[in-house]
């Protein structure tokens, strides 16, 4: 019996030398390892043997089988590699070019901002780009015929929509405009929800101004609003510091909070940051405690709830993060620009 195995092995060793291509190799494989091979026949006799003999022969047969498998595998690899240089690929060749599409840098920055705030339990809502004068100004404590309105250069929508004419003249609060900031969503959201809550509002806003490297007639803002019974200015500082440190991935970032004025907050602050390596302070955010008149305008009791609001320029953050020198690139539709943003 054992001789039989030896002769199979010997005959295989002779045959394998003659194999020169994969077809012959396949024939060889079937001959020696196939269902009708000699080895297979020999194995089928196993059941007739008894005890020690059986164990002995089984062990031997398996050794031969393993030997055949290993030699066959090596032979196959050698045959497959035939004709290529030194039987190996030149791993230093360049890889095949693969490309998927590219998100706009503003989408990427907006996503990052959203994720950071989502992790701090903020929700994301959006609002309309065409607003009424009421939501964009009046309800935000920026009354008509007040010079504070001049802080926002406004595009007005032509037409009579909503305009009421009466003895006192047109009700100007019903005029339509392109929102100059995302702050109207503070009002829209508060009108429909009860504190406590915390939201951010990304969106496109518009300013009537000449375009240059740092000004566009449309751009993006990210509004934030957190209101509850005990939300303080100190809380604002915490949330904003955490946000910027994460966003710029700079735990040692320096901050500067300066007094500022926006009619819908009090006190109003301007936030400057200085990242590792920055030589100047960078203005990144306007914010403050929600003005009591704004809380009143949405029917809240300012004695019971308080909170903070902030707004930042998404474009500006993208420009700082990616070192983009000109805001107009963002709206140029130039795919050579868009395709740079891969990471």
């Amino acid at each position, binding site marked *: 019996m054992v001789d039989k195995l030896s002769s199979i092995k010997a005959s295989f060793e002779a045959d394998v030398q003659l194999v020169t291509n994969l077809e012959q190799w396949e024939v060889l494989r079937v001959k020696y390892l196939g269902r009708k091979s000699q080895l297979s026949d020999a194995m089928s006799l196993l059941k007739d043997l008894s005890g020690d003999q059986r164990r002995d022969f089984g062990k031997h047969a398996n050794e031969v089988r393993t030997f055949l498998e290993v030699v066959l595998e090596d032979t196959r690899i050698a045959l497959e590699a035939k004709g290529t240089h030194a039987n190996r690929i030149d791993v230093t060749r360049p890889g095949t070019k693969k490309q*998927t*599409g*590219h998100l*706009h840098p503003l989408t990427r920055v907006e*996503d990052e901002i959203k994720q950071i705030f*989502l992790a701090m*339990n903020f*929700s*994301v*809502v*959006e609002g*309309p*780009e*065409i607003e009424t004068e009421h939501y964009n100004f009046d309800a935000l404590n920026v009354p008509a*015929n*007040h*010079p*504070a309105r001049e802080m926002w250069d406004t*595009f*007005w*929508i*032509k*037409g009579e*929509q909503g305009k009421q004419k009466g003895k006192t003249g047109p009700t100007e609060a019903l005029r339509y405009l392109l929102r100059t900031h995302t702050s109207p969503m503070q009002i829209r959201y508060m009108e429909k929800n009860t504190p406590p809550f*915390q939201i951010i509002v990304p969106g*496109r806003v518009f300013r*009537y*101004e*000449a375009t240059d490297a740092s000004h566009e*007639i*449309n751009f993006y803002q990210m509004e934030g609003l*957190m209101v*509850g019974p*005990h939300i*303080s*200015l*100190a*809380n604002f*500082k*915490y949330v904003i*510091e955490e946000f910027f440190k994460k966003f710029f991935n700079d735990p040692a970032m320096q*901050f500067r909070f*300066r*007094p*500022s*004025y926006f*009619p819908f907050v*009090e*006190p*109003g*602050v301007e936030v400057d940051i200085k990242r590792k390596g920055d030589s100047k302070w960078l203005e990144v955010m306007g914010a403050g*405690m929600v003005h*009591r008149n704004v809380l009143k305008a949405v029917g809240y009791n300012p004695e019971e709830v*308080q909170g903070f609001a902030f707004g930042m320029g998404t474009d500006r953050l993208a420009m700082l993060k990616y070192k983009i020198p000109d805001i107009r690139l963002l*709206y140029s*539709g130039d*795919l*050579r620009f*868009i*395709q740079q943003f891969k990471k």
Partner: protein
Amino acid sequence: MKFSYTLLKKLVPEIKNPKALEEHLSLYAFEVDGIEEKTFDIKLPANRYGDAASHWGVAQEIAATMGIRFSEQRAIATLLTRQVTTTGKQPLSVTIEAKDLCARYIGAYCENVKVGESPKWIKEILTECGMRPINNVVDIMNYVMLETGQPLHAFDYDKLEGGKLIVRRARKGESIVTLDDQEVSLTEDMLIIADAKRPLAIAGIKGGKLAEVDTHTKRIVIEAANFDPVSIYKTSRAVGILTDASARFARTLSPELATLGAIRSKMLLQSIMDLKQKGVVDIYPKKQAKKILKFELNRCNAFLGTAFDVKTVRTYFELLGFTITPFNKTPIAAGTFLVTAPALRTDIEHPNDLYEEIVRLHGFGNLRSAAPYVHLVPSGFEDGVVLKDKVRRVLTSLGMDEVYNHSFVSDQFGHDDADIRAELVALENPISKEYTFMRPTLAGGLHGNVESNSRYFDAIAAFEVGRVFAKHKKEIKENNMLGIVLASKGTEQFFELKGLLHELFKRIGLNDVTMYENAEQEPRFAGAYISDQEMLCIESDGECLGYLAKMKHLPAKWHGSIVELDMALLTKLVVAEHEYVPLPKYPSIVRDISVLVNTRERVGDIMQAMQLADSAIIEDVDLIDEYENEKLDGKRSLTFRIIFQAEDRTLTDEIVNKDMEAIVALLRKKFSAEIR
């Protein structure tokens, strides 16, 4: 607003140098827009013109924020309490007719005026503040405004008809020639200062030529008044004249400030020009009430998230010149007391305004940061935001680049279609012809993207998610849209885009989408960019989601196709969850069939007919080849691949052949197809 460093330094000698002052102001008080030599350009908040549109006010602010008591604080407070009026026969008569627009009017009369140059020190300060010295009278008026914040005006008394000043609204048809020779037509809502007959000044905005102080002037009237901010603001805008005076009045001044202006001008006229006032009229019917606010330290600390003690806040209040008195005999040390703000602080109306003062003097930077205690509720994104994000990821994974275009279209948009023009949302004040209307479609922007990028690329795959606008029955409609273009030099892109769209729908969970030809349903606003003969409507659940069409007017040799979809409808229609479908247990059988049909026949119809053929085992039908040439004589060759699959058994050739025969019969009958 421009300030003189020389004057500020004189008022607060502790100021070290301009650089230090700039830094200090911006951290504790107001933003500094720039410094040029000795001119400080300070960005005053609109609510602080009452006290801080003046060197005294800014000096008070600087001193307080430096932790120093302002040396003039007490003197100014005392001046504010002084009587202005003189008794006896008044040479000047003043009447306020428009009582609602003029809270106070002080008119001071002086004789023996010698108009000439003003002293050098006044001229220097004026120049530092960007003002041109004119003559001693006018310069003193301006200087006092810079010092106190109260705008003043001087009239030549001898030019007043009847020795009278009347504060009234302009009459229909009246006009005035201003000091700088502009003729201004006045309307009935504008407040003016007139004599018995004619307008002499646009109140609070600009003086007129008629009563101008000139080199021959012998007697003058000095005006220190208070006018309604809204009226001044509207008039100033209506006549297009902005002055130092109108800027201040429009932002609310206290009528008490007029006292400072009157007294200070009297002092300077006397010391510089040796003038004696012969009479002063002060019409001030409703004296401004004192603003006394109840301050509660615990509320202040809760609002700010701070732990200030009474001593600290008291110091801050005193530095600012606020006075503190007990509330209901409670000891001040208990933390509840009354605070009276200086009369000029028109911005202080509520305890919150006091909290702001405290945190500002403390410094925002010195505030500790504290994590909020909040009720944990699941946070998340609105459905529309979630879908938008998903669409963006799917499309980029399919090789598309994202673009952002402007929200505007040019004045040429739809110029040959009056209906379209009527539905466009127009800007009242467009910034240029290029940006006149709000975009009603994303197609224009994407079409432009193909054109501009065709210089650098041979193929373009881009998309945009953005709002479009149109008027619908006079109402403005704002829709969030998804637009996709595929364009390439030399190769057709329609079917690429159609296939991509199907993949997108599957990825976002939109089942049951049909696309069909319907020339009637041409997209309203994209007409200029697409070929309406090669267009499909995209429908799901009976709603028209958008269209897919071949683009026209692309650069030579370029082919492109475009899709626009309504994101709000998509959001409504997508299903959130996937459902598992069992994997096939038995092998499928594939059959190809080539047919020759008239070119009129639509592939979509043929495939749909095959899908609906009498067979329970058709898994999928696909077109794998299309061929058309002259030899085929008005016909084209189509090769379809049909996959047969049964859930419960292995299919045999016999069964499949039977169904194939049925399909062939159907194609012959319905489409007169020749089987090849």
